């Protein structure tokens, strides 16, 4: 595999979706390519940083709650 193929398969690699033979080729390239290792680490970091932006829940304005409940009766 070359850099283009490794970066193309990066998501599948991280998801554990590569077949054993492809995974082995992927890792062979990583063993000799510092640049692709850096790309992989910063790709993973990007996903971690995304997760920090999650907002699980917000306070709902009372008027919206009332509007939703009122709309059921219409």
């Amino acid at each position, binding site marked *: 595999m070359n850099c283009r193929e490794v970066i193309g398969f990066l998501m599948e690699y991280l998801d554990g979706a590569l077949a054993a033979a492809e995974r082995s080729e992927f890792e062979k390239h990583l063993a000799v390519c510092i640049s692709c290792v850096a790309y992989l680490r*910063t790709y993973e970091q990007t996903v971690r940083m995304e997760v920090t932006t999650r907002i699980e829940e917000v306070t709902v304005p009372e008027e919206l709650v009332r509007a939703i409940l009122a*709309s059921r009766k219409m």
Partner: protein
Amino acid sequence: MSATIVDEPSLVARLRAGEESAFEQLVRSTSGRLLAAARRLLRNEEDARDAVQNAFVRAFQSLSRFRQESSILTWLHRIVINEALMHLRSRAKSDQPSIDDLLPTFIADGHQTRDTVDWSETADQALERAETAELVRRKIDELPEIYRTVLLMHDIEEMSHAEIAESLGVSTNVVKVRLHRARQALRTLLEREFGGQK
């Protein structure tokens, strides 16, 4: 998903029986989670509230079709996401900006045009600052809509490739390609902030 409903089977039974207090319990226990998702996708308070309200109306009308194969929150979440996608489609611009400038480039033999530098440790330190999440949020919002949407649905709303594909009416392969391109583009935007290569 963080919102939880104690004794959900009993709540569903009460909803199906038309008990007023059950509807109020459902709205109060789930709407905070649903409004957060709608705001994130739509970036407009009025549209987000409309999406949540329309989703509840739709859900109330189709309670008989809720088969309890998932939690009621998951079911409502899917309906809100679909409502938000309808809003986004109605305001979609035909000329989406290209993402190509944010993707890696390669020379003829397939090697990277320029070496990537590992900035993950610098970013780790930045994550300790409260304003970093806001910066990342702004960078996500810079992505073209079709990429931003898939990235939010998968990485933030934790929907599967198959669920996203169904909501968007595209194949799972298209979802995977868009998600990978979205993450790569976001990686480049963050590299400009944390990699010292402005």
